[in-house]
């Protein structure tokens, strides 16, 4: 059993302590917006926020996540409005297949929290998610659009 705080809600989940947070979120908490891509913290599809920091949830165990504030893509927007990154993604038509975009959006949201006006170099350093469709150009443009708003 583990108690996890996800998107402001407490979940008591029947999981072993070494279960990766990703699978506890997807299979036990039932929040499937966070995606499995590699399982070895390479691709970033599973990126969530832990106490506001972008983390790859496939590489974090449930026991490490207990007591932390976890935010997934489902918890990024407020009840009545989308997060500015989601809005920019829609305005810029960023996603192609979209599978990596939950993680991409979470990584970008964390970057903008830390640096509201990131330079290209900041983006290059912070955004290391894999996108096989190749949406990088639109990702970069959307970040700059938010920063200049």
């Amino acid at each position, binding site marked *: 059993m583990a108690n996890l705080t996800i998107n402001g809600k407490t979940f008591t989940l029947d999981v*072993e302590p070494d*279960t*990766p947070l990703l*699978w506890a979120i997807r*299979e*036990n908490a*039932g*929040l*499937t*917006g*966070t*995606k*499995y*891509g*590699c*399982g*070895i913290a*390479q*691709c970033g*599809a599973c990126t969530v926020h832990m106490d506001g920091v972008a983390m790859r949830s496939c590489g974090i165990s449930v026991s490490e996540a207990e007591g932390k504030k976890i935010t*997934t*893509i*489902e918890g*990024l*927007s407020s009840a009545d409005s*989308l997060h500015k990154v*989601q809005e920019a*993604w*829609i305005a810029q*038509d*960023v*996603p*192609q*297949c*979209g*599978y*990596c*975009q*939950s993680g991409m*959006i979470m990584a970008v949201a964390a970057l903008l929290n830390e640096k509201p006006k990131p330079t290209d170099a900041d*983006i*290059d*350093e912070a*955004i*290391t*998610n*894999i*996108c*096989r*469709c*190749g*949406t*990088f*150009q*639109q*990702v*970069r443009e959307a970040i700059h659009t938010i920063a200049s708003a």
Partner: protein
Amino acid sequence: MNKHLSPKMNRRAFVIGSAAVGAGLAIGLDIPFGGPAVVRAADGSPEIGAWVVIRPDDTVVIRIARSEMGQGSLTGLAQLVAEELECDWTKVTTEYPTPGQSVARKRVWGDFSTGGSRGIRSSQDYVRKGGATARVMLIQAAADAWKVPASECTAANSVITHTRSGRTTTYGKVAEAAAKLTPPADVKLKDPKDWKLIGKGVKRLDTVDKTTGAMIYGVDVKLPGMLNAAIKDCPVFGGKLKSFDEAKIAGMKGVKKVVKVGDTAVAVVADTWWHAKTALEALPIVWDEGDNAKVSSASIAKWLAEGLDDAQPAYVGNKNGDAKAAIASAAKKVEAVYSYPYQNHATMEPMNATAIYTADKCEVWCGTQNGEAAFAAVLEASGLPAEKCDVHKVMPGGGFGRRGQTDYVRQAVMIARQMPGTPIKLLWSREEDMAQGRYHPITQCKMTGAFDANNNLIALHYRLSGQSILFSLRPEALQNGMDPVAFQGVAQSGDAAFGYSVPNLLIEHAMRNPHVPPGFWRGVNVNHNAIYMECFMDELAQAAGQDPLEFRRKLMGNHPKHLAVLNAVAEKIGWDTPAPQGVYRGIAQVMGYGSYVAGAAEISVTDGSKIKVHRIVASTDPGYIVNPAQVERQIAGSFVYGLSALFYGGCTVKDGKIEQTNFDTYNSMRINEMPKVESVMVPSGGFWGGVGEPTIGVAAPAVLNAYFAATGKRIRSVPLRDQNITFA
């Protein structure tokens, strides 16, 4: 029509849909006494021809048969229908008919397969007619109600107007009446100059859910009582499953069942996938690997190299004059050998499918590029007839050709069959996905060019040795043993025609098929053919002492469309003006999938091994462009996929198995490595070419040619990581 489809359809069953997850549509047939049939969508709204449903609130539902997998065809196809329908674009939504419904209705939606950059180009004519047919019926219904001739009525933005009286009505109001009319036998399509929506970069129709986590991919499908399966197939292709020791994992948490899947694989079924995967990793498995376990990359390379020898048999794909004789007597000749490795598709979402099987029914939910092939796989694996099966397409997390295959669909059904009544979601681990790919085929190529005393290219011999995709996947499409697709980009004619005139030309393929299963990988054979041909063109230009662009131009007089895109790229990159200090350029062109494309790169190289790509320019002439914003994204994406393969890709074989296991050993480009791609769209009209794939062909050769310009060194094999060359 697929040979697996049963001809014994239950035509009397008039409700053939499913209301389960995955946004399937249900269709009912209304057969009132004495009147024509009205076909209804799941919510009761009438169908106006097979492609359009109009709801009372004026919502326009457009049916899409091809698969959306990120390439944007869903939006483009809707634009094609809406253009002729004259509907309000803001009221358009889409839905997928299921393959089962299609079969029951004599394939009214045509081909479902989505590969070969065919989504739009192969369906544009009949989907536009679908839109036009519905428009004619809606106008007729309004005219009938007003008792005026239909010729006095016009339609725009979902509003029908009687021009003489000024009366108006909406599509939603006349849809019921329109649905009862007999569709016109023939409809006239608009002249392209009158298009309003085609050619416009409207926003995609499927974006919002991709930004909120709400989009359901195959991996996200949930059914009541569902269990999860993890699978391991024999890592040596062609090998078999010998035994497994189920007792060793019997007590592990969540494990429900361990099942054999065909002759080659074993799956663990558990409450969660994490439990299934954990147990599978602990399961002792013995494989019968067979002779293929002796095969390695080195043994394959040796076998392919032998195929480069003229004494070995080869299929001739393109020929004029006598290349061998001309080379033998030439003043000067140039020769080079290139190679291209296996590549994994590495879609972001690993392969998966969810199946439920009972004696009466088998249904599958999955991302697929070919709904009908998936349907045929369900029939075959379930042993049930067509009317008892269906496939519900959900969003795939990437396709790139991999999801045109149905191995994972078949596996899911084979597992579900062993647990009747329990829905089973089968998900491959990334490691399984890397080990069980349908890989970009492996080839080598020996090219010989010959010049006369005035440095004119008089002969070219292009001898390809290596794997045929058709031999493995579609042997019925071979032509007397020859794989015509092997010549993509260097073919005599057709939608992937060679763009140079050489007086003595011989292009041939020594087919050699290693045991590693090949597949259609974004760009398919254009990838290696364009690298070989375009890099060798640069070598020939160098041997002739000429500028690479000028050298090409002289050979392209009879190929004006190839030349036009090359010129467009040259102009945009500024070929005639010097590059910035320390920056070097490369250029390439090819034709594939009915489109003419060219690309140019500006790069700098540090220490001979660190490449920074500063600029990419790419041009395309696909005839017509439906949505320029999506075309631009496909071009940029194709460069990311193509350059990832060039720099980081390459799957190697050891002991008969693929060595790469995950993104740490099969890496992919990140945002810091990719410059903006500047697209130059030069649609010349009169034909329909593809978009998703063609430009990938010029990605690698443009960069490789720039690398030579920067360093004076030719790179003749892929990936660059094997030569310790990487991004700066």
